[in-house]
């Protein structure tokens, strides 16, 4: 659930107001504000779209008690989710942006599933034939 907007970074550009699917935000004169915290479902898209890394969404579904805002800002976590998905200035990359899922697949290797698992066995038998090029 969304916890705070860092007013010193927020420029009141309105991006979060525009993209929040549940209209959690409102725009005040100097910054965005959290107007309907209870409607947040922690989708984290506001962190993704915020060009100024000014928003902190807690991964917990309920409000956090005794949250230390300055410690969170000092920890460098602001913007970390945006960076992990390769977003910048409110925009996504022109593609997936990384091939980590494929690297993971190659690293783990693919052991055949137990024959009793018919679905995965059938899928395993054609697993790499989807790769294109």
């Amino acid at each position, binding site marked *: 659930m969304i916890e705070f907007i860092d007013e010193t970074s927020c420029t009141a550009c309105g991006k979060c107001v525009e*993209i929040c699917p*549940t209209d959690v935000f409102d725009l005040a004169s100097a910054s965005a504000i959290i107007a309907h915290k209870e409607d947040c479902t922690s989708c*984290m898209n506001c962190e993704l779209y915020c060009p100024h890394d000014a928003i902190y969404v807690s991964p917990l579904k309920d409000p956090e008690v005794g949250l230390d805002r300055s410690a969170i800002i000092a920890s460098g976590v602001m913007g970390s989710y945006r960076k992990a*998905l390769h977003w910048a200035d409110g925009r996504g990359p022109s593609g997936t942006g990384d091939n980590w899922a494929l690297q*993971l697949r190659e690293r783990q290797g693919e052991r055949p599933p137990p024959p009793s698992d018919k679905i995965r066995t059938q899928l395993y038998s054609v697993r790499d034939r989807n790769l*294109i090029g």
Partner: protein
Amino acid sequence: MTHDHSGYGGSEFDIDLSTDVLVIGGGPAGVWAALSAIDDGSTVVVVEKGYVGTSGPFGVGANTGIYYIMPNDREQRDAIVAARQPIAFGLSDPAWGYRVFDQSYANLDAMAKWGFEWPRNSGGKEDRGSLRGPTIMAFLRSVLLKKGGIVLDHSPALELLKSDGAAAGARGVNKQTGQTWQVRAGSVVIATGGTAFLSGIVGDRTHTGDGYLLAAEAGADFSGMEFTGQYHAAPLETNLTRGAYRSGVGTYYDNNGKPTLEGRQLVQALLETGGAWDQLDKTNDPVTQDLIRKTHALCFQYFERKGIDPFRQRYPINFVLEGTMRAGGGIAIDDDLQTRVPGLFAAGDVTSREKLVGAGPPGGGPASAWAFATGHIAGRSASAFSKSARGRGGVRAVTGAGRIGIETVAKPRVTTEEVLRVVKEEIHPLEKNYWRTGAGMQRSIERFESLWRDVATGLGPVSQGDAKSTARERLKTREAAALLATGRWIYASANERTESRGLHRRKDFPDMDPGQDGQHILSGGLDTVWLRRTPHVNTLTNSQGT
């Protein structure tokens, strides 16, 4: 019963548009419907309750798989389609499998042509089977706008419009401005997603079954609403019912530390030992661990921000309802994705996905493919309807089809809060909806029926001071009515099916009943819920696999 512009402050709408095709809902299914209708030469308006790009389960940044099959690889085609059949329990149509997975390949290929860069492996080969929702949706939104699609964000539909018995548009509000809107259209595609009955899972706040109620009021019916007992594990403090990050590396434990399998055993562990735990303890390789962390960045926000090392620590989990956001029941559709109502089409999670997955769980890969493919097909069908004599380009006289929770009522008999409380109490608990019983459902049904009588005549939006609050109140009222209506169709259908099959589990009928093989249960109705059994028929005549 129909009515005209009442309840919208006179006969004027702040926004009044006319289009060939109206798409309600801007997740993947809705956007693909819009794109294919545009490519077929139609004008399109997309109305989205949230924001096209971030709404719903797909707009959340978890990695989601998508199934596709290579057009010329017969062995792969047959294997991927055949893999689903054992868990469809005789209620799917294999030809639909070829159709859906072929179409999702075509959609992914179109994205590549539009400039989307798919990841490549170390050998330079491209993989299109893994999607990061927000990035994909931002890309598709930009394509949609470039192609001339009109998008109204934050604009939930509150009722459909009809003309001569056919769907002819919709009316609604804008949550941010309080403006009212009307879009007259030659045909309509509903792509509003499934619902988890506000169990709290990520992305569920916008998904309140609105499309089911819109469709039912217009005369559509449902299929497979009993195949909805879908729950998934999530770390206890979170709403992340996602499993991909732990696939192949996680172990579930009961509250006594005994390893347990997922599914029924895990539910048993929760109910009988009072808790369950998870740990990603099947890999010690730091490189693998780092790649899991990076691949599944959304899920790892929880671990990283709360200082949990899931590879070395057990963390508590819960089992949370996902409902039709993952299960297959929904609006009954024909091979063109048309509902029972002429000109009303449906796509994605809001439809019955039995043609693809029968009674079983779709899982992420087939569900994404279904959204992409049925969106595309529904958009094309809706475009053709709009051009036909019945569609007449959206210039007909229209009437509102909305009945429940639309009008302000003088003496409210029930509040939205009360409706939501009762629905959640009857639909969320594992003891009621994961394990169903005839007696238990009978009690839920009686409670729902009594509440429905109050809702039908005594639930309406309460006047608010300003337009914006009024818009939110109107929406809240419809959401509550939609969830109650959906709960009624689910338990009526589940009570009718006196066996266990796929995502329908009954304690009093724990086994599959061969006597009910190959039978779908249709449902519908507002004043009175009706049910009808209908034999399964493979409707696509030519298997495209051979």
